């Protein structure tokens, strides 16, 4: 079992790096999806505010 530590280190690094990359992709995706949901909510609110401003202006006239 000479040089087993090199073999162990090589395979450990391969799996750790690949696993870390997958986690990195998933976390980035999850963060973007949360931001998309928040932005869509904000868009709905803004779209609701613009017609209400229009209605207010019509009522003033």
């Amino acid at each position, binding site marked *: 079992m000479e040089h087993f530590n090199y073999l162990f280190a090589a395979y450990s690094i391969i799996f750790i790096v690949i696993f870390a990359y997958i986690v990195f992709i998933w976390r980035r995706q999850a963060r973007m999806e949360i931001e998309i949901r928040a932005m869509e909510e904000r*868009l709905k609110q803004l779209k609701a505010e613009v017609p209400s401003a229009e209605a207010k202006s019509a009522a003033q006239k």
Partner: protein
Amino acid sequence: MMKNKATAVLGWATLIMMLTAIYMVFEWVPTEEDQGIVQRIFYFHVPCAWVAFAAFGLVAIAGVFYLWLKEQLFDDLGYAAAEIGMVFCTLVLITGSLWAKPIWGVWWTWDSRLTTTFILWLLYGGYLMLRAMADDTPEVARFGAVIGIVAALDVPVVILSVRLWRTIHPAVLVTRAGEHGLEDPRMVITLLVAIAAFTALFAWLLMLRLSQLRTRSRLLIIRRDAALIEAAAQEYAGNY
């Protein structure tokens, strides 16, 4: 993220293939006589190199198609492939170094194959830095496509380096004498299974990363729409 059925199926297939490859590497394949147990690094070192070269080749192909057709899909494909290629090129350099130390007695030597691989790593490192730091504009995408194509020219140089220059790195699949250098057929089968597993892993990661780039494009559109509507809302609020 795993809504896409094809991505899920490919993910599970990759896991099964990877576990099979691990079993073959640690249980099934015989130990090489000269180098001993450390030679087993070879069965994952070579597939990592294969994925890196395939990914960088894909960057070049996607770059050519982007310059030709100006389709966003090709820019995304090139960007995703470059990132994955960089991960596997890094693994090639690390595992190669861990294999070199017990066999050559050094962690690193400026051998032709190692040097050209390191140059490849630097070239795509530059490509990824450009993509990460610059805005998402067609000019940056065009510039990135050109860098991706030029950098990929180093891939055949890396592959042929063991034949073009004097080197201590072994020619893996075919030696100068025309033999493959793997004396036992189980070694060849294990290598092929590992290459298949890593190819599946590459395809799966590419699908995940492409899906993420599509999400990012969607987010940018929503951000732009929100900014426009917000400006309109402020204008209304200011006027009335």
